[in-house]
């Protein structure tokens, strides 16, 4: 049995603690009494993954076994999560490949000809052929690419279908091929409690018209947190949409969960608690840090983006979405949940080099904002780790860099929108429509590998709850101009940041540090 999560109280015995800061990391000495929230140790992976998948398909929850749902002449669509999860991308073979191969084996045995595979990338960028190949594997790729294996295109009017409106008036519009299929098999990887469940189809195959009902400032302000579906307005909206769409299309969901072995052997010290570092780990730390600092920026990025996580599956569940998802959530909680008693005045965390939207790309300042105030801030259940009016201190160099192919609308959002205001409600009402319907961004989304024009807005809304909750946000080591543009303050060191925070929380605040990655979900009581 793996060790549960831990809340460490920094004492004079505590060695310096590791902090991520973009494409780098450092050791930091926190003030005595700081609470450090560690995740549970990695759970043991499933020994026979193939057997577990087969078992899940043959003994699904709330559904007939998959082979019984398959028949000759049917339209079968297999939909899978895109490259935004898991993070970092997992070592081959990807769990999605292993599942898709078994589903296709069963479909072939039943003599089904009309099979199509669609990546549920929603308004994310189209994946390249190599990226898709990494997810589905060579055999599937060779058999289906490019005609019957493709990215979802949310801006193709002929390929979208409006299924109706929920009782709250929310449009449910998804991919036509999926909507008109006799069976939709959704293959999911769940890394955080936010993903999976009703979100999979309702978001992954949706259009802007549908997404705007839950990806908006008001909904996100009332999603506390969006990693706690029960208390997330966003998930309530997903559920309503899912309820409507399963009246039109039969969905067979296959959900998987991973343990938290996030970094490969050469970076294994990043997975460990610092006082347990062996001499080898310490050597690896020094070597990795030294080499990282000496390497040219391009090489450094290539190395980091080349990291493949040795994740091992901890659960495979299949069947009706509503039946499957509680099991998935339980597995995620088993791996990530750490009980924390009470909130603190200051929350600290180090932001790593990767977020869902910069795989094989560049982490621009808006993504830093979204990762910090969105994803990391919301890694809680119950109550935020920091009290209302408290201060968030995060570490990231925040260089003003953008990937011109992947994030064209981000550049304009940064230069044009944020230069005028950082207020989310104003941005939503004044600029969102314009960016979402801009023909040039739509063209780049459909034909190039660009994120949709509205995507940077969603990233900005992602931090809506945090911005409403926090008294101040300080970024250690950040580019001052970039931080100021995002409405934050930059500090050179932690001591400076705490000094700056003293205006808000006094000179002896209580401090919590979320030690992540590997991902930690704080269960604040």
């Amino acid at each position, binding site marked *: 049995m793996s060790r549960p999560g831990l809340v*460490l109280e920094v004492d004079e015995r*505590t060695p310096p603690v590791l902090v991520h800061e973009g494409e780098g990391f450092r050791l930091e000495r926190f003030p005595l009494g700081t609470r450090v929230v560690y995740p549970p140790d990695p759970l043991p992976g499933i020994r026979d993954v193939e057997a577990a998948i087969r078992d899940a398909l043959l003994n699904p929850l709330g559904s007939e076994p998959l082979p019984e749902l398959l028949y000759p002449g049917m339209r079968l669509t297999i939909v899978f999560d895109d490259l935004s999860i898991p993070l970092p991308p997992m070592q081959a073979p990807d769990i999605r490949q292993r599942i898709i191969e078994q589903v296709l084996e069963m479909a072939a045995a039943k003599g089904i000809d009309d099979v199509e595979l669609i990546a549920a990338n929603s308004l994310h960028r189209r994946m390249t052929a190599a990226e898709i190949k990494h997810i589905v594997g060579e055999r599937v790729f060779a058999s289906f690419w490019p005609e019957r294996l493709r990215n979802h295109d949310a801006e193709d009017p002929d390929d979208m279908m409006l299924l109706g409106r929920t009782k709250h008036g929310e449009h449910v519009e998804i991919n036509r091929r999926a909507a008109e299929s006799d069976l939709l098999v959704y293959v999911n990887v769940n890394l955080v409690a936010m993903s999976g469940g009703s979100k999979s189809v309702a978001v992954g195959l949706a259009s802007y018209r549908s997404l705007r009902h839950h990806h908006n400032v008001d909904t996100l302000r009332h999603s506390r947190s969006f990693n706690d579906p029960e208390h997330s307005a966003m998930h309530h909206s997903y559920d309503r949409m899912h309820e409507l769409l399963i009246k039109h299309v039969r969905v067979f969901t296959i959900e998987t969960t991973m343990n938290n072995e996030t970094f490969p052997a050469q970076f294994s010290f990043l997975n460990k608690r610092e006082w347990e570092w062996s001499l080898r780990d310490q050597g690896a730390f020094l070597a990795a840090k030294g080499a990282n600092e000496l390497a040219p920026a391009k090489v450094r990025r290539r190395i980091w983006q080349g990291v493949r996580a040795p994740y091992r599956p901890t659960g495979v569940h299949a069947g009706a979405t509503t039946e499957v998802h509680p099991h998935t959530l339980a597995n995620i909680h088993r791996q990530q949940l750490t009980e924390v008693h009470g909130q603190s005045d200051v929350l600290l965390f180090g932001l790593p080099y990767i977020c869902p939207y910069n795989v094989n790309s560049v982490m621009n300042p808006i993504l830093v904002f979204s990762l910090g105030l969105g994803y990391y801030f919301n890694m809680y259940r119950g109550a935020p780790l920091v009290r209302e009016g408290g201060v968030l201190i995060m570490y990231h160099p925040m260089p003003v860099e953008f990937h011109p192919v992947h994030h064209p609308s981000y550049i304009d959002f940064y230069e044009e929108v944020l230069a005028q205001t950082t207020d989310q409600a104003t941005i939503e009402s004044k600029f969102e429509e314009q960016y979402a319907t801009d023909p040039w961004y739509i063209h780049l989304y459909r034909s190039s590998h660009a994120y949709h024009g509205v995507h940077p807005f969603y990233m900005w809304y992602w931090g809506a709850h945090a911005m409403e909750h926090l008294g101040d946000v300080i970024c250690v080591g950040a580019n001052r101009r970039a931080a100021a543009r995002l409405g934050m303050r930059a500090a050179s060191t932690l001591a400076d940041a705490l000094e700056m925070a003293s205006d808000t929380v006094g000179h002896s605040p209580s401090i919590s540090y979320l030690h992540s990655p590997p991902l930690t979900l704080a269960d604040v009581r």
Partner: protein
Amino acid sequence: MGLASDVRLLRRGRDWRGRATVPRSAEPWAPRRESRQFPTAWARTPLARAARVVALDGVLRTLAWSQTRPEVYGTDLLSDVRGPVVFVSNHSSHLDTPLILGSLPPYLRRWTAVGAAADYFFDARWRAIGTALIFNAFPVERHGQDRGGRRGPEGGAAPSRSGRSGRGAVRRGGGTSLDTASALVVDGWNLLLFPEATRSQDGWMRRFRLGTAQLCCQHGIGAVPIAVRGSYAAMPRGRNWPRSGRPTVVVRYGRPLYPGPGESMRDFSARLERAVVRLWAEQDVGWWESMRGSASDDVPAAASANKQSANKQVAAARGPDAASWRRIWEASRPLPPAQRRRRIWPR
């Protein structure tokens, strides 16, 4: 940040093998190991008793009497004492045990075993052997004992570094020690116990714990209250030899107390503590005044005045309610040598 500073930072808190100490809050929980008691039965064999006569009567008593000026009162009250009984004293110095044992009549001294802190006197084998041989000591567990002198909100010892509360620990740790003590009582041995459980930090009396009273109530045996004064001034904590100039120390015995029928151990413990407090006060105010102060509340006319006087005695034994240094200052004031007779009747 350069490599050198990274190395420096990395080396912080790690030993030469690169191993770091586990932070306290990350230490794994482990069930408490049952402590194995140091066997002391050999110290009560005829051979050991013969050796003790030489070591205690011959050497230690001589040394104590040569380095201090002991004044012993109340031994006449012990003439009717037939064991087993428990000698109960306040405790502020390592001198207390040799002074008490040295002042006891030989027929009681030779049949007296001393309860000694297991974590202090029995932590190393050589010390355990020496203590058991010279003092006929047996180990008393005092887990969670507050050595810092702080008190918790309910009068028990504040939580120790190990996180166990003193009170609960006495109950737990008292189990084995009480068993040993009970066995000794059953075998007819007198016991010398210090219910404060540790030497006073500042020379003043602390609240008694219940173990001694429990033992008396359990076996229906008597307890002889003893007050030792001046030992803190003569040899406080931190000293291993008395101050020069033969400081005066006073050992005062009281009349044996027996648990009454139906008397709870808590009540008996309180009575015992009052008796020691009275003996403490006798040094300052004389026998009659101290007796008046601790007279029974059963006499209604005198009850109110007596209560006030008793409270004064307890307050006097607890020391002044003042800064730590002032308490130590007062406690370390040497006792005047008894040259003139004290008045029994007040003027």
